[in-house]
């Protein structure tokens, strides 16, 4: 009889270990999602900080492009003010800022003096990189949400998720113009 007892004990211990592992896995994935969201914020903020510098560098060379520059500054201020708002609203504001920046960079092509300026080139690299980082951090956030959602919905961890209140995450949808192929800049 004692052998059966040991077997039952062994099974219970095994189950406990499995439950702990599943719970920890869910916690880890949920934290990854939170972390990834914070990372998006970090990159967006970096963009806000870069833009005034960019506008100042460019202003001297592009005196006739006041409207384009103003559009960029306004879009940036609006986006920064929207930090506390929900994901859909922020996504829209950030998309508009990306659009304004893209238009500015297209206009810059007409100013060869500006394009040769070392400061501007360094800033352009930073801006390009920041745009990439925003898009990668969004990508990573969506990947994390997918992993987390999978874990909360697939068997057997969905039982665990239900018991302990792990809900899925929301994907960060983007309607920004930069996601499509940018128009080719052609010279006459």
């Amino acid at each position, binding site marked *: 009889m004692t052998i059966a007892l040991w077997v039952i004990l062994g099974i219970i211990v095994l189950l406990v270990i499995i439950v702990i592992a599943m719970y920890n896995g869910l916690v880890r994935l949920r934290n990854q999602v939170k972390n*990834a969201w914070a990372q998006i914020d970090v*990159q967006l903020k970096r963009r806000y900080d870069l833009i005034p510098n960019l506008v100042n560098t460019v202003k001297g060379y592009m005196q006739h492009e006041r409207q384009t520059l103003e559009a960029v500054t306004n879009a940036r201020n609006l986006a920064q003010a929207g930090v506390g708002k929900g994901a859909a609203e922020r996504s829209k504001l950030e998309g508009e800022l990306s659009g304004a920046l893209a238009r500015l960079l297209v206009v810059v092509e007409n100013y060869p003096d500006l394009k040769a300026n070392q400061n501007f080139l360094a800033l352009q690299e930073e801006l390009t*990189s920041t745009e990439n*980082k925003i898009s*990668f*951090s969004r*990508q*990573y956030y969506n990947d994390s949400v997918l992993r987390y959602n999978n874990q909360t919905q697939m068997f057997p961890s969905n039982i665990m998720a239900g018991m302990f209140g792990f809900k899925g995450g929301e994907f960060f949808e983007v309607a920004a113009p930069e996601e499509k*192929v940018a128009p080719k*800049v052609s010279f006459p």
Partner: protein
Amino acid sequence: MGLGLLLLAVGYFLGLYFFGSPTGGLVIALIVWAVMSLVAYFQGDSIFLAMSQARKIGRDDFPRLYNLVEEMRIASGLEKMPDIYIIDDPALNAFATGRGPNKAALAVTSGLLQKLNRDELQGVIGHEIAHIKNRDVLLMTMAGILLGTIVILAWYATRIMFFSGMSGGGRRNSRSGGGQGQAILVLVGVILMILAPIAAQLLYFAISRRREYLADASSALYTRYPEGLASALQKLATSDVQVRTANKATAPMYTINPFQKRGMSVENLTSTHPPIAERVRILRAMGGASYADYERAYEQAKKQRLLPASALAATGTVVMRAARPEAVDEKVEKAARVRETSQALWNLSGYRTIDCPCGAKLRVPPDHGGDTVKCPHCGRIHQV
């Protein structure tokens, strides 16, 4: 793991012969393995870096490279930025090293920085970051140690057997009796001792090649743009410059086989890297950017499986991003890259740069005594 089992088998038979106790042999094999592992673990990455004369760079030394690495770090979910090094070498190659994701280093040759455009460079860096994230360096080090241990043990075993003869081994194990069973065991042991090192080597190289494919797949997933890495690999394959400081020990760490032109065959079983043409073909055959897409392309080309089913489950569809608009002038962009790279290298060596109004660029060496320097073209004096 095949190599691990092989080691245990070798240890078992060693013990059977020489100590009458197989567990004794196993213990000895494990002790040898443990000692070698500890040594390799703590030696770390500094040896590779010192051997390649790599120089560490910070964010301001080379912003474009630093930014690319940071972008890949974000896309892969690595927690800590790896240390970034530049190797002053016209050859095109890159490597990753380090114990694990928290203590990793990544090195790129200056030739690579000059010749590849942003997307291609990002593909290569994505590949290296994938090595870091998947702990490939640790894996290959462990595998290398297992291989070394097996070879050492098998060599000693065959040597001793040769000198002491079969009968000696048989006599020591008389406790179990039954000559027939004993002879078969002896025979199996002998065959194992001879074949083990060969099998271990083949396994080692097979593992290395598999991890390379996996790193390619991960790079495509992070960048969402497999064409970047494919195009970079093509440029690497057609370049004909050799990496000066590569040798057999450091070969597995590079992006492509650094010996491809030296006449060492690169496409057989003893190669650490899969053939580049194959890698490029698989990357270009991908329909999306997920692991499932890579697996599909891989199976199409090689008729074998690469990734386990668990890695492919529930990856969802991952769309490749569109190609960026081409640079307006490829030559101008390339010239800018070359200038940027050589400027960074001069700075790293401690040289200061002064732009003279006559158009000349003066490079002041770090050991320049005195606080003025004269321009060799126009004769103007500049303050250092």
